[in-house]
């Protein structure tokens, strides 16, 4: 009875963090399906991601309403809502980027398929690594900094691989038109953005954890 209302808020927060995790997984699968021309699966990924994005917005609004109407954590809720906003950006980016694949239909040469998939996997790994750090902020803020170093690692790796791909596109593919090269370049940037956003979340978490400990 003492924690009845708080248990609801905790469940909502856990659900939101799970949705962030699911969104990047759907994005990863979506890119794979696009590269390997699995049109039906790709379309399913699009629909699932669109629905997930709406559900996450809904949950974020519920959390905000609950925190403010029940006056929970008046000192921390500003930081927490900012954290959720940044994490929601990961979901929004995943959806937006996958829809870009559908709308613009970039022509990915077969020789770049594996590179694009690897880039996606590493970028998504950065976002996946931020989830346990966010969860531990609520229970064990001292362990947050131990968990976010993986985010920085994957973000750096994403940048390196993206650079390698772009060099390959512009230097080793004379058959591609310049417009196609630019198009592919933008898609590497779209994928990179996910790891960059995850890094922002990690930075924010680091400061929030220090504030709680001090």
């Amino acid at each position, binding site marked *: 009875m*003492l*924690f009845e209302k*708080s248990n609801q*808020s*905790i469940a909502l*927060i856990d659900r939101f963090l799970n949705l962030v995790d699911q969104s990047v997984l759907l994005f990863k699968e979506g890119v794979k399906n696009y590269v390997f*021309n699995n*049109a*039906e699966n790709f*379309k399913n990924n*699009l*629909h699932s991601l*669109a*629905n997930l994005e*709406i559900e996450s*917005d*809904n949950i974020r*609004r*519920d959390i905000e*309403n609950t925190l403010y*109407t029940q*006056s*929970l*954590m*008046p*000192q*921390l809720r500003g930081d927490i809502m900012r954290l959720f906003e940044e994490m929601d950006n990961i979901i929004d980016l995943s959806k937006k980027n996958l829809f870009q694949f*559908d*709308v613009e*239909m970039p*022509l990915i*040469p*077969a020789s770049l398929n594996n590179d694009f998939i690897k880039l996606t996997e590493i970028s998504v790994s950065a976002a996946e690594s931020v989830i346990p750090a966010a969860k531990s*902020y*609520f*229970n*064990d803020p*001292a362990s947050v900094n131990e968990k976010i170093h993986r985010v920085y690692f994957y973000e750096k790796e994403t940048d390196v691989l993206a650079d390698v791909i772009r060099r390959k596109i512009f230097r080793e593919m004379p058959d591609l038109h310049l417009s196609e090269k630019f198009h592919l370049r933008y898609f590497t940037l779209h994928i990179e953005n996910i790891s960059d956003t995850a890094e922002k979340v990690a930075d924010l978490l680091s400061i929030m954890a220090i504030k*709680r*400990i001090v």
Partner: protein
Amino acid sequence: MLILFFISSGLFLGWSLGANDAANIFGTAVGTRMIKFTRAALIASVFVILGAVLQGSGTTNTLSQLGKVDALGGAFTVALCSAVIVAIMTKNKLPVSTGQAIVGSIVAWCYFTAKPVDYGILTVLVSSWIYGPILGAVFAALLYIFMRRFIRTTTIHVIKLDILIRYALILTGAFGAYSLGANNIANVMGVFVHSASIKINFWTYSFDTIQILFLLGGISIAIGIITYSKKVMETVGGDIMTLTPENAIVVVLAQALVLFIFSSSSLSDLLISIGLPPIPLVPVSSTQVVIGSVLGIGLVKGVQEVKFGVLRNIALGWVLTPILSGLLTFFSLFFVQNVFDIGITDGRQMNSSLSHAAATPIIIHFSNDYLYIVILSILALLGLGMMYLYILFVKSKNKYKLNQEKLTKDKEHVEFHRALSELEVNILSDSYSTGNVNENRKSDLRDFTTSINEIQEYLQSLLDDLKEATNEEDVTLIKQKLEKITLNLKEKSDLSGGFSLFLNKIDGIESIFLKKLRNVYTNLTIDEQKLALLLEFGFSDSEIISIFRLNHGEYESYKNDLRIKLNLTEHADIANFLKSI
């Protein structure tokens, strides 16, 4: 009820104490919005009255021994001057000690009336100004170290921890209010103990002077808390050091412990019983103890956290308060005695009716009739209280209902947008495929129209040739023309050239489909690519057979090869698969 007039200055002092000192207990909790002000004020009011009534006698005895103010006029003046000084210092936002003000006033009365000052008690009181904050600092430092360790090592969810902190703030606040009432009631009503005489006989039970004074004093403190402490609470905590709710628990608990220790006669007796020296039961300034507690936390965290400039102003207040209070009291006593002709000490006989009225003891008897009135009044008050609580409950329920309705509307709004975005996605994909289909249809129609025109033109030219031939009279020329028409017809019936043209045309088509097909299935031959293209365009098997001039078996073999290279099963529909690329 002239006595009420005389004790009104004490009540005013109590009101000042409540307005000023409640911020020490619930200031941070209210300022950080952990607890609402109304709840904090209610809890503080109830517990301060309980503390005053149940445990106020210890410190009152000590203070009354400093200088026995034995006339209501004198007591009235002493309390009034202290209250004025406290009010002025509070208005100027200086933390002020009611105890210091009252000590200064009592000493001034002693000097004015040439009555002895108990310097031993004065020493104990003054030294409490020093070791009170020191003790507060020590308690706070120890509690802070424990609290910090707990916060850093706990794995309780932050939301549950927030709720625990709220309950802790309420409990420590209640304890703090109780200790405040127990320790500081002496400052409010201590001066009237030797001069006032009131007794209420409540059927079988009697309330003596001290109990009545404490109750009235406690109520005045509670009224001060409810009416004026909110403004003071808004500035607490930020003045010396920024306090978090966790630190507020430490500070309030340290303060409550110090005040409780210095007002508990039971604790003092316990120490005596085990052979230890007794704790002096002296009124200690809660403000000073809070400052000491905050300082204790600041020293544990780091000296850079403490704003020493504010400490300087506070120290100045400590020096000025008793001096100013004493001076004001001294001159006020002169006026009260000589201008208003009110006795300020029992030793001087005054002729004014006021003095006589003040000196008369008051005894109130509650008979059975009064008993019923009192019981009915209590019941009425309880009824009003319950009605107020019910109204609060209904209000909060309505507020919750409104919030739920708003949430439902938000959800419907979100569902609407979800449906809209799904529709957009479907329209986007449909329009893409519809557009393609439309384009294809248009091109089909164009081709169809072109071929009809071509046929028409050809037939017209054939007709012209035949007309020419029939108009000729020379048989040789007729034969030549007929041979020419026959040759023409033969050429037209030979479709292989046309089909060759058609196939060459396919080679020129650089569709996205062909590009994707070549990228994914790099092992397809040119003919297989053309076959795939025709299937994707929707040509039937018989049409393709005609174009490629194959027989049925050969065509099926080509299709099978294509099926294998596309990694499809035996019965898979190649055309549908190719259309999905």
